[in-house]
């Protein structure tokens, strides 16, 4: 039987993490399901765990200059109601799971789970989100896109806890988000797509495009986005085909019990085309 802890403070949690490697459980919407057993039995966690959902120090959303800081234990239902949070992220979170699960789950938990099908991840990537990791004695930050390295794999160290998600404030001219779920509510994602476009004086000043669940990690290309900067309608139309092809080459989905590679690829490409159409519309 593994040990379980209920730390009373963040400091205590960090100490327990260091001493035992206990995995932090906030909402439990992933881990309590993955390791569950039959009714009346305990989940079979292969490591010690600590329950941190009641740590007040890990709750809250605030703004530090141009960064919105979402503390790691903040429930999804709080995130989607907060006026500080970017509207596209709120939209994405509102479509995650179901009301009761949003009252338990957290973005941090979702990120650490690192499922390629994680709904909100493509929006967080598009917004250039950073995560904050802390140990007893230190703290570091890194881009979310550097933190998740593969399906179920992150850069989280054995003595670290995720303490916050930090999202730069972003104002775009046009935003685009689509989640394609298995049904209209309480649905796992087959794929998701987030696009943010800023246009100034008929040229693209900023463009971000991220697609989720179509590759081992969220697809976003800084290179392609940079190449689009400064384009006007003519330049963009000229390059549209090769740009589309470049994105298409990054979309490498799989077949699974929810959908097929063919569907995911075709629809992802269709959504990218739709975003490009919105870009052209905005540029003209």
């Amino acid at each position, binding site marked *: 039987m593994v040990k379980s802890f209920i730390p009373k403070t963040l400091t205590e949690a960090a100490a327990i993490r260091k001493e035992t490697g206990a995995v932090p459980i906030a909402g439990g919407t992933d881990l309590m399901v993955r390791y569950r057993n039959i*009714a009346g039995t305990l989940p079979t966690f292969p490591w010690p765990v600590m329950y941190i959902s009641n740590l007040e120090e890990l709750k809250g959303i605030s703004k530090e200059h141009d960064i919105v800081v979402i503390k790691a234990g903040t429930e999804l239902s709080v995130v989607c109601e907060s006026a500080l949070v970017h509207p596209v992220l709120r939209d994405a979170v509102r479509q995650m799971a179901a009301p009761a699960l949003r009252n338990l789950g957290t973005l941090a938990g979702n990120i650490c789970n690192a499922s390629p099908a994680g709904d909100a991840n493509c929006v967080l990537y598009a917004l250039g989100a950073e995560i904050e990791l802390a140990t007893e004695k230190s703290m570091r930050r890194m881009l979310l896109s550097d933190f998740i390295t593969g399906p179920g794999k992150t850069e989280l160290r054995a003595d670290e806890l995720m303490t916050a998600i930090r999202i730069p404030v972003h104002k775009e001219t046009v935003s685009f988000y689509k989640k*394609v779920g298995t049904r209209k509510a309480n649905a796992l994602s087959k794929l998701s797509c987030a696009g943010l476009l800023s246009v100034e004086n008929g040229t693209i000043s900023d463009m971000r495009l991220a697609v989720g669940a179509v590759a081992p990690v969220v697809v976003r290309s800084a290179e392609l986005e940079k190449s689009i900067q400064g384009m006007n309608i003519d330049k963009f139309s000229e390059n549209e085909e090769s740009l589309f092809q470049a994105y298409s080459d990054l979309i490498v989905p799989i077949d699974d019990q929810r959908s097929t590679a063919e569907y995911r690829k075709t629809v992802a490409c269709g959504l990218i085309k739709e975003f490009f159409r919105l870009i052209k519309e905005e540029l003209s």
Partner: protein
Amino acid sequence: MDHNLSQDFIHGRIGTPVKRLDAVEKAGGYAKYIADMDFGTVLFSRLIRSTKSRARLVNVSIPPLPEGYYYISRKDIPEGGENRLHMITDDWRVFAEDEVRYIGETIGLLVGPDKSLLLKLESMIEIEYEESIPAFTIDESLNLKGGSIYGDDNLFADYHLQKGAGNIDSVFSGSSRIIEDEICTGFQEHVYMETQGMVGFFEDGKYVITASCQCPFYMRKAVAGVLAVDLDKIVVRQAVTGGAFGGKEHFPDVIAGPLVVALHVIKKPIQIIFDRKEDISFTAKRHPSRIRFKTALDENNKIVGMDIDIAINAGAYQSCSHIVLQRAVFSINSVYDIPNVRIRGRAVATNTFPSDAFRGFGAPQGIFACEMHMSHIARDIGIDDVAFKKYYFTVTGGLTVTNGTIHEDVKLPEMLDKILKASDYERKNLEYGKGNGRAISMSFYNHGGGFTGDGEKEIIKAKVRLKKHSNNQVSIYIANVEMGQGFQTTCSKVAAKVLGIPLADILYETPDTSISANSGPTVASRSMMIVGKLVQTAAEKLLVDWASDSEHTVEVDYVQPDGVEWDGNNFQGDAYPAYGWGICAVEVVVDPITHEVDTEGVWTVHDVGIPIDDLIVHGQVHGGVIQSLGYGSLEKLEIRNGAFYQNTLADYIIPTTMDFPSIHSDLVENPYEHGPFGAKGLGELVFDGAAAAYAAAVQKAIDKKISRIPVNPEYILSLRRK
């Protein structure tokens, strides 16, 4: 509806709604389902199942068991007992013998007081198999892949029928055009919200089982022979049942068999309750079907003949597959009177989990295929599908595929008028066109109430008993269960109305084989039509001799009404005494990029004779239609390496509140003289048509032929690409 328990129905229309008898108990959380009931100290259990689809069972090695833990298997069946469940056929074994035929087949039962230890012991069991080549699909079965599983030809049933006396082959050779088609449907899981469960104990020489079930008497019959005891040594009591839909008709036998053997050995209370993943993975499903049509048209594009080949995937044991096949065959022309029809029906054996009863019982498969095929013909000849289909509507006196007649008034034209108006079909159809991403279509369907032919007379022989107590309350002792469909309330209403006493004075006694009259199973949409009628008759008898302050018991046996002629050997004549009828219209919008479908509207009109309770009847319509829309659009259940691939509720998806709009439900009245107050069956009718209406609407919206369900976005994409 301001009355607490409206008594208006007693002197007025029976359909005037009452507050359901079980509603407050359930909504307040007081109702105790099997997992809530207190049986004192019980032992828990784990079914040990085959992990191979087809293999010789070489060795089963059980770890040393601590005191108080048991492993029950075939060796524990007592002298004289059989390793067979007496369902309709006797082929389903209680425990696997020398070979296993599907993933999930019961090999043994592990019993003990601590669940965690049971799980640990379960993981230590080692089973050695010698695998052979399994067959999973209808084609693989017909090709005898891996050698035959059953008999020489893998056919549990092979039926040949012909409607009309014409020469089908010459009809075809003389025709102008032949349209060929193949329509397929897949597995469907019941997803009753309460999983399978039962508790058994041994008391006073009897094996007493309390179960979430539809048919206590079926269960008793299924397992008595396993222990070689008389029927009265097995007592089965129904627990409050959280949904069934046919999934608790025969399947509980499969759990009860090992349970009674365990009780025989251990003689202590034992509980078997399934986990959801276990339930999806290891219970019977709706039969997949593959139905092929060859339809001959004359020079005016009128149907002059049909040649139909129906195949259903029965899985590894026959269970009731031949009866499901019969209903698929009998429903293959839906509401149409089509001349010169030749039908072949086969139920094939495969190495998949045996399929069994599920609301509709073969009719949804037959009707889906018929409706889609008719819409394909309409498409091919360039007519709107509704306009095409209505030409073939049967009428009173119309011939059925079994050369019987439709005896009742057929209200289809009136129903069609109603639904055309309610859905604004004609204007929309014209405006939306074809292939523009938005469309509306309809399906037409009927469902024969009760057991096929003379099943009620020859096999079931239903009895009901009513007892008047000296305080003037009346108990109903019958076998039909309340499983959500409202039967406890509607049956009680029938008795109350005849007797003229308050509903609160009718006591619907929980079905229990030791005290109930055997009125037969809660299946086949027979409860109200057949048993309700018997209750009405019994109440009328009770009334004749009604004397205050005295006790009086009345029993009534089923008598088949005159005029129903049936030859059960050749399937000729009137398969059913009466039919429920339905029309469902669905309007959809299909997204051009994601191919997701938004259902904008659903309308229905049904003829169920007379509604015994408006709220209950419309509630059944809503539920049946949504369940059918799930079958048609969301519920994909695939077999991967012999096992069900979508085996959690995250992956096997049923409709949520957001997936479909509210259903418009309308009725036409058409009293059936042999039904209680004119009522006919409806429980399955309301499931039979919506999937086809949905598919037909999407078909029009994308202007591509749809030939299978579920019509999910992946399928739509693949069609649009063609």
